[in-house]
């Protein structure tokens, strides 16, 4: 196969921490397989590739685009739309693109509150109360900054998405498995996953792949991890009273955190069939509470120190709770 006959691959990070890129690099020697299977036209963090090169491509000329990161500025939204137009398959890669991730918690605050906080911290020297300006008239000319959007959006709130690879970041073994499936579909040796599929993850919950023992015990109260002198290395963390998100979270990571005595924080997103992550987790927590009276159940659930953070830690921006898709579909290009 000549290089030009290889399907084109683009990898693009919007507002992100770079962990998704590191996770891709961590497929180690399989990187060579990716380079053999694809003509990589864009991966700004790792290799050259210019914005203008992408604009020059025909619509649909890129076979697959992986987008990590969330939609935080008008510039990233513009680039996501451009890449959508140029790509046959748009893959939402990682938690930020898929559901907003931790930075999605910013949607609990207004844009002004976020800027005000960042530019008035105790070490900030800002007597004039300056804030970044999208258009600033410096002495020598006008300087532009991308506009910080009022809300952080997920990729599928901005463009049509074909597949989703969850995780913060996706585990490297799963990344290779997902890319391999796409490669096979493209060269006709494997089935094309149905549109909307979640790739590179399991079909059950973290609890199902967790090695800890469950005694189906009920708990009288939730505890915070710093209050537990010694975490039992074998017993279910939830049954030890630690708020563990395993019951609502999609499998695929190998239950790494619980294996290290750290509760699941839910980075693989909602388990299959779950419409609202937080609602599912609340009902899972309620079901282990050793109480029947509503008041008593409330008392136990009050032990969750930060309900919105606990139930929507990764999924707030993409949840029904805060910013439904429909709210964003009217302002497309």
């Amino acid at each position, binding site marked *: 196969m000549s290089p030009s006959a290889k399907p084109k691959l683009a990898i693009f*990070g919007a507002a992100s921490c*770079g962990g998704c890129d590191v*996770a891709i690099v961590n497929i180690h020697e399989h990187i060579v397989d990716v380079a053999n299977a694809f003509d990589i036209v864009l991966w700004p963090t790792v290799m050259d*590739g210019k914005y203008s090169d992408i604009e020059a491509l025909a619509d649909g000329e890129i076979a697959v685009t992986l987008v990590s990161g969330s939609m935080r*500025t008008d510039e990233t939204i513009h680039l996501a739309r451009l890449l959508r137009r140029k790509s046959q398959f748009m893959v939402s890669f990682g938690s930020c693109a898929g559901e907003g991730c931790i930075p999605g918690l910013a949607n609990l605050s207004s844009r002004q509150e976020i800027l005000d*906080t960042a530019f008035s911290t105790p070490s900030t020297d800002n007597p004039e109360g*300056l804030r970044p300006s999208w258009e600033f008239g410096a002495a020598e000319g006008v300087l532009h900054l991308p506009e910080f959007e009022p809300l952080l959006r997920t990729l599928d709130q901005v463009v049509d998405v074909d597949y989703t690879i969850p995780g913060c970041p996706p585990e490297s073994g799963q990344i290779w498995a997902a890319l391999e499936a796409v490669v096979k579909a493209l060269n006709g040796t494997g089935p094309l996953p149905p549109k909307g599929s979640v790739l590179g993850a399991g079909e059950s919950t973290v609890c199902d792949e967790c090695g800890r023992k469950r005694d189906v015990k009920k708990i009288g109260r939730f505890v915070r991890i*710093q209050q537990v002198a010694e975490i039992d290395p074998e017993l279910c963390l939830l049954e030890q009273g630690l708020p563990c998100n395993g019951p609502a979270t999609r499998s695929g990571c190998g239950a*790494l955190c619980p294996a290290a005595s750290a509760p699941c924080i839910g980075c693989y997103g909602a388990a299959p069939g779950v419409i609202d992550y937080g609602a599912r987790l609340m009902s899972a927590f309620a079901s282990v509470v050793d109480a029947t009276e509503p008041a008593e159940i409330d008392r136990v659930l009050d032990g969750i*120190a930060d309900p919105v953070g606990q139930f929507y830690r990764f999924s707030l921006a993409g949840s029904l709770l805060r910013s439904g898709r429909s709210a964003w579909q009217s302002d497309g290009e």
Partner: protein
Amino acid sequence: MERITIDPVTRLEGHGKIEIFLDPDGEVANAYFQIPELRGFERFCVGRPVEEMPTLTNRICGVCPEAHHMASAKAADAVYNVDPPRTAKLLRELLYSAFYVTDHTTHFYALGGPDFVVGPDAPAAERNILGVLAKVGMEVGGQVIQARKNGHNVIEMIGGRKIHPATAVPGGMTHGITEEQRAEIEKIGRWSIDFAQFSLGIFDQIVLANDAYKDMVLSDGYTQRTYYMGLIDPNGKVNFYDGRVGIMSPEGTRVGTYAPAEYRDWIAEHVEPWTYLKFPYLKKVGWQGFVDGVDSGVYAATPLSRLNAADGMATPLAQAAYERFYATLAPRPEAGGKRIVHHQLATHWARLVELLYAAERMVELATDPEITSPHVRTVPTETPNEGVGVVEAPRGTLTHHYKTDERGLLTAVNLIVGTTNNYAPMSMSIKKAAESLIHKGTVVHQGLLNRVEMAFRLYDPCFGCATHSLPGEMPLQVAIRDSEGRVIEVLSQNC
């Protein structure tokens, strides 16, 4: 007024954009280095439980989550005024040392190395990791991959995951390690010492043996006389995990050291309305703008800065490398008595000295008799209140400052992250490059691109630790505009 826009492709990531304005005579009027993104962690972490901060703040940076995880855990310890058991501290530092080995290795071979090993005059297409491997041997590529794998395996053993570790909590760690894991980590540490020495050898053979490269390192274009910052242990030696922050003047005088909780007495952040990032400076010296020298509060926090701010390295092989570094580049002490290297390109060499220290430190920690103790937690008993945690991130001193209510829910968060420390010195390097290569409206195109690229690379910028650029390629694009803002020429380079 004519303007030149340099857009590291990282435009695609919202990374950084440089605007250079020329005056009517065609000389540089000013240069602006803009960071076009913000995520707002200081706001949305408010209300979260303090024990979650080590995992929440990991998501500031996926390249150095270990730094945020550790600074955050230390800040959370301080919030509860709890002292973790010795083993917990050893484990955190062991994870962190393994991370340093991985991070510095990646930077030297994939990012910084190409400039020296392949050579700044080599065609741009060869100045990448493949060019490095062609020069030093393909088998080294396997070793670089091995070093990365090793580091991430150690991080997973202690931290639970390879990226975004999960196990540091207020008062210690969630779990300890087994003897089998310890033995494996010790083996990796010993391998890393050999690898670091091999890497220093490459620097010797290729850079120090070549007068042209050495002259470039010593050239005025890459020299800045700023203050320097770095964590030091009680003996004044470089430490990545703990200690006091040492401040060295450009004249070789240690102007002071501060405990993490005292950071506001020393550091303030200047604001400009044309960028989302702030410019930290030394409060006691003051903000004088983008200038160096003893009267300007601008400081740098890099591998070179850490060596300058310290009296030496705490391990024997690294100490020998440190002495050789100063004997070669700073034969005479400054007026204040300390030898200081102001040549910014020497940051690459300093990074290798640190690589060797991190590897030696891994072995010291992995062979500590208490490292496999199961006692890794102290349960806090005091009411949570306020705390500051500091570590040395590879890209600069990292400060997390939290205030909480009596339940340990955050009421205020302040973060000064690694790369941010270097925002002013980086901006100055860019302006200096522009001033030396643009005269009477004539732009030395390739020279400007090279200079800006190399000035960037030595800092290993990570915006920001907010957005971020993976160690790898940094292509640049320059648009030259006329006074109407029309693009009259575009040039680009695959760096």
